[in-house]
């Protein structure tokens, strides 16, 4: 087994992951505080990579700091900002720091972020990045040269179970699995139907499914996501529920908690996106019976 997360999922035990954005700046103190507070609550922490194309510290540093703390990171790596040399060398650096879980992403387009004038790279796509990880795991780089010191990554990929047409989405997911993805972390979900369809389609590929749950902090945030975040739809009744709520954050937390319970039977793990409110994660997970 390459990582505790891998072990957990391979043993068919339920996994819980959460994501924390690294700081804009070099001070990882607050990031680590949040991560430490989740020790024992989640199994691994996703460290996002210039999320939404907004420049932040490279996820490698906070991921390495997590390893030092004995907290398991999932390093997110996008193809937007690095060519194939930079991606491979970043991966080798991650391996040297003891980072094993990697989530291979294409990356949001550069104009969405705070450096809209930058040159988008996309030398590789997520499938090709997964192939690169598999190649490194086999002791070679993309040029075929043997490595001195071979990493043992547990590669994962993102998936949008609600994106239509599903047949097209699935064609890409199949390629990701064939390229070496062993787990999928999904876009935020709001009902089990699409997750069930998704699970049925991808389980035969030998891939574990970690379902995404997002903490919606207000009705405004729900509307913003519906308008701006592709592949994600907050159902009208949830928007209404948040609209009527005297304390929207509490209601949002309750909704997330409900979603964890509804999605639980149809996945191998849950991934919480708490959007800066990581202190609410234990409450969101309160009803989760892991069954082990």
């Amino acid at each position: 087994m390459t990582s505790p997360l891998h072990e957990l999922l391979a043993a068919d035990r339920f996994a819980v992951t959460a994501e924390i954005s690294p700081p804009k700046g070099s001070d990882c103190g607050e990031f680590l505080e949040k991560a430490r507070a989740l020790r024992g609550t989640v199994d691994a922490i996703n460290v996002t990579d210039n999320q939404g194309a907004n420049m932040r510290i490279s996820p490698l540093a906070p991921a390495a700091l997590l390893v030092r703390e004995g907290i398991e990171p999932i390093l997110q790596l996008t193809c937007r900002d690095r060519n194939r040399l930079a991606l491979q060398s970043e991966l080798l650096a991650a391996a040297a720091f003891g980072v094993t879980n990697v989530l291979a992403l294409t990356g949001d387009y550069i104009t969405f972020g705070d450096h809209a004038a930058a040159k988008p790279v996309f030398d590789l796509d997520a499938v090709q990045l997964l192939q690169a990880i598999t190649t490194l795991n086999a002791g070679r780089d993309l040029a075929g040269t043997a490595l001195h010191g071979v990493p043992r990554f547990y590669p994962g990929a993102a998936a949008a179970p609600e994106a239509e047409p599903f047949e097209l989405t699935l064609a890409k997911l199949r390629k990701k699995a064939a390229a070496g993805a062993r787990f999928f972390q999904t876009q935020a979900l709001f009902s089990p139907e699409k997750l069930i369809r998704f699970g049925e389609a991808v389980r035969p590929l030998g891939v574990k499914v970690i379902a995404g749950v997002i903490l919606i902090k207000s009705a405004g945030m729900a509307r913003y996501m519906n308008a701006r975040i592709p592949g994600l739809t907050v159902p009208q009744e949830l928007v209404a529920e948040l609209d009527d709520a005297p304390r929207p954050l509490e209601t949002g937390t309750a909704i997330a908690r409900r979603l964890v319970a509804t999605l639980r039977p149809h996945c191998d793990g849950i991934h919480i996106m708490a959007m800066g409110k990581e202190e609410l994660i234990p409450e969101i997970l309160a009803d989760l019976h892991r069954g082990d």
Partner: protein
Amino acid sequence: MIVSKQKPFSEILASLENISRVFLIGCAKCATVCKSGGEEQVWRMQEDLIAAGKEVTGSMVIDEACHMLRVQRDLRAKGEMVTAAEALIVLSCGAGVQSVSAGSDRATIAALDTLFLGNIRRFGQFEQRCSLCGECRLNETAGICPVTACPKGILNGPCGGMSEGKCEVSPDAECAWYQIFVRLRDRDGRPLSPETTPPKDFSKLVKPGSLTLER
């Protein structure tokens, strides 16, 4: 054709700060079609420059400004008019501007921004369909170019931003991979290939490109 558009006039004027006498050069091919450097635009540029207090020693529209020998010949033919000017203002794509700068000892001023290799949808409407990637993939993608039609240029299917067949970058546009998926399905009756397309070979695209035909 090469699609170009005029720089803001203020920017052109700013590059003429210490220059009072200019000669104008347009191009009869692409720049004429996209109305950035044909007879009409050269004429208007001349009027605007005169209004701004500049002296225009003359003008010409070269048959194709990217043809280096022809540019040299045409510049020579204009003799006096060209030598009387301190600078040559060129209303053509960047290739044309450089034929002129290589073929004359006068300062050369580019009046256009060169945008892309474009298809003409209808008069006055241009669309980029090919980004000259040096390794054409159209035979595998139902004749739709993902290198160009997808803002990320990704080669193995839609990114996570595709939603209802629309593109995350411009939600009014169809995702390139949705277009390919639909055309393969409807025209060829087959699904997307399950084979992974390997990373592109950018060594085929080392700049500056050159090609010499065998005799």
